[in-house]
């Protein structure tokens, strides 16, 4: 139960941060990627602001034997760079540019612009299912 509350709090703060920073607006995100147009650098400030507390958190993580509410850290590796990573990232980036949405803002927007956000989220889940059955 405590773990679920922590996860909910984490998601809540994440969604609040997205909405407050303007990142829940697909047009603003797309404008960050539109350097030849009316470029909007806001996303860079959001990234910088997010990386700061997280960099500190990693320093603490290295000194902790286990997380506060669980028995072990379950973290991905940091070194493997292969074609799967590259092709996946390039496809994701293309979709991000076309819709102006990545997974976080899309799901947060279910509360702010339910109809269009739902269209994107359903398509996104469909893409995930296609990947699962494509087995790559």
């Amino acid at each position, binding site marked *: 139960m405590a773990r679920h509350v922590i996860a909910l709090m984490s998601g809540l703060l994440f969604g609040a941060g997205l909405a407050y920073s303007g990142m829940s607006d697909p047009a*603003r995100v797309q404008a960050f990627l539109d*350097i030849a147009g009316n470029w909007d650098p806001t996303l860079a400030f959001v990234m910088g602001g997010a990386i700061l507390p997280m960099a500190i958190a990693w320093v603490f993580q290295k000194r902790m034997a286990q*997380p*506060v509410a669980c028995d072990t850290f379950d973290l991905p590796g940091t070194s493997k760079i292969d074609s799967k990573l590259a092709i996946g990232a390039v496809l994701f*980036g*293309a979709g991000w540019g076309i819709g102006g949405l990545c997974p*976080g803002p899309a799901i947060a927007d*279910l509360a702010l612009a339910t109809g269009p956000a739902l269209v994107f989220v359903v398509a*996104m889940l469909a893409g995930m299912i296609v990947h699962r059955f494509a087995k790559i």
Partner: protein
Amino acid sequence: MLPGFPQAMPVEGLIGGILIGVSAAIMLLGLGRIAGVSGMAARATGIADTGAPRGIAIAFIIGLPLGAALVAFFNGPVAVSFPASPLPLVIGGLLVGFGTRMGSGCTSGHGVCGLSRLSRRSLAATAMFMGSGLATVGVMRAAGIL
């Protein structure tokens, strides 16, 4: 206000970014996991068999729209403008879903969590999805569909 970029929101961006970073820090130090939205979404829906315990993923994913709704409630309406046609939403969504699973992460997992960890893998992924996003929007502008 940022000189030269009247539409930019540097202060709100930084504050909102810090909220996101604190959120990811809570997930890391509290539950020992990466706050990666694509992975959590795949896990919450049961599309992925491995990853966070399902209840954790569901709680995190439910928090996202709740947090956005709280900002709208206490801070006033949040501006969101979506593409007018559903076509870019469908194509974009399919590519984002497929690509984030294949590339094991999105802006949160690779971008926020990976970059702050100085992960080579995440740095490579972030450079590639940023580059791809910039190129895609560049092509859209050149083609006159932006």
